């Protein structure tokens, strides 16, 4: 990681936060999720009754709790970035650790939700609604796991003092990815669990 120019208070930053390579990855991921969301919405337009019927069987409370868990995790990541901008690498590591812990809570709740559906005998081939529900949420789930790995690696580096006020590109890179995971879920939850 190369050193970065630290903007003065009130000064606008040039360029996106973190490594630009992660942004190419983020844009590609958003494109894929966008196509997935629109496929769901337009397929639903041809199967309104089916989608409305089976949407009622989803655990909306789990979905809402997971949204709050993910939003909170993103907030902790913001605190981590702000901490390292002050040179507080140990504090940054603690905030990142908390963010990973909340990522773990999201994963746990999602696994409970998946296992409940599995126990009901529901699979990708049950019907078109469940095909979308399972594939969309599983795809997002994989991104949460990947984000947790990235944030854990960044937290360990931060705890070792590898980041500073001048050089914290790695923290911003991991943070940007995690916020993308949050952003996607913010669209996914109302689309799949609520709108009818």
């Amino acid at each position: 990681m190369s050193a970065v120019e630290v903007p003065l208070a009130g000064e606008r930053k040039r360029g996106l936060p973190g490594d630009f390579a992660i942004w190419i990855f983020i844009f590609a991921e958003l494109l894929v999720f966008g196509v997935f969301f629109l496929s769901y919405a337009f397929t639903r337009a041809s199967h309104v009754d089916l989608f409305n019927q089976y949407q009622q069987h989803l655990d909306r409370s789990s979905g809402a709790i997971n949204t709050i868990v993910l939003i909170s995790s993103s907030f902790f990541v913001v605190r981590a970035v702000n901490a390292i901008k002050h040179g507080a690498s140990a504090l940054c590591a603690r905030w990142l650790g908390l963010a990973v812990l909340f990522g773990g809570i999201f994963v746990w709740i999602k696994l409970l939700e998946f296992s409940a559906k599995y126990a009901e005998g529901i699979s990708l081939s049950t019907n078109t609604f469940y095909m979308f529900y399972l594939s969309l949420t599983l795809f997002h789930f994989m991104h949460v796991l990947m984000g947790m790995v990235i944030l854990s690696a960044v937290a360990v580096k931060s705890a070792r003092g590898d980041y500073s006020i001048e050089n914290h590109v790695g923290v911003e890179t991991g943070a940007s990815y995690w916020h993308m995971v949050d952003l996607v879920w913010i669209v996914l939850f109302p689309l799949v669990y609520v709108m009818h």
Partner: protein
Amino acid sequence: MEKANRNAFWVWLALVVLTLVTWMVGELGYGGVSVVALLLLSVSLKGQLVIDVFMGLAQVDSRWKWVLTGWLITVVLLIGLAYWISVRGVH
């Protein structure tokens, strides 16, 4: 930096409140074009708050940041179009 943390806290609170409203709409079984429009407005607001404050792109001078806002607007508008088509198809 205290100000940045305070701003992030208020955004977190707004996101939580909007999420609870969304959940309540689902629990009460509200649906239809106007409800979907309000939910999509909520999604747009929440998404833009994440982009501007959590990602910190409001403070960035880069054309690239408009890719995210463009993605959000495009996805929300097209989801709205799909729901509008579904209602026209039903009635």
